[in-house]
């Protein structure tokens, strides 16, 4: 009888632990000041990048970055500026992936988070934008 009671307590504890684990995995923490500020900075920069995605000058890479893939689509006079916009975007993206990993107490997740974002950027890209497929070739969506 005592054994059964102890067993029941044990089972209950295990169920509770499992539920807690499921709850912890339901959401990633993304509501931190660092993430919010990166998000705002990227949102603002998107005003400049949207036209570059549409013209095919800038494409989405398979590793979660952006790159100037067709410099000829940008007038020579603007090329330097586009290069710096691309560099700034990649810096923010790297910081974003790192910050999400850190906000969840798992810095080692950074690369997994980057890979997840790489897929989701491409998935949510508008038709006409260019992205890199898994073998590295450029594809027009």
């Amino acid at each position, binding site marked *: 009888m005592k054994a059964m009671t102890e067993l029941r307590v044990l089972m209950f504890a295990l169920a509770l632990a499992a539920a807690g684990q499921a709850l912890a995995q339901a959401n990633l923490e993304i509501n931190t000041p660092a993430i919010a500020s990166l998000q705002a900075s990227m949102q603002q920069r998107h005003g400049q990048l949207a036209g570059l995605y549409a013209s095919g000058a800038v494409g989405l890479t398979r590793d979660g970055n952006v790159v100037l893939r067709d410099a000829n689509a940008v007038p020579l006079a603007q090329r330097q500026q586009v290069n710096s916009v691309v560099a700034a975007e990649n810096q923010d993206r790297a910081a974003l992936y790192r910050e999400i990993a850190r906000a969840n107490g798992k810095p080692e997740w950074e690369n997994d988070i980057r890979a997840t974002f790489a897929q989701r950027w491409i998935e949510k890209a508008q*038709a006409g934008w260019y992205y890199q497929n898994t073998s590295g070739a450029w594809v027009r969506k």
Partner: protein
Amino acid sequence: MQNKLLALFTALGGAAALVACVTINIYFPAAAAEKAADRIIDEVWQIKKGEDAVKGDRPAAPN
């Protein structure tokens, strides 16, 4: 008999708890990460709910 059973279940429970701990440490929550990514991307690209890539179609600028 009951004591043996208890010992067995305690051992099993302990093993399960140990496995759960290891899982928590190495497991990457892919679905949660996808959800977080989507929320951030929607915000950065200003994608409204219900609007998807097809609807947001835009002709490419002439080269």
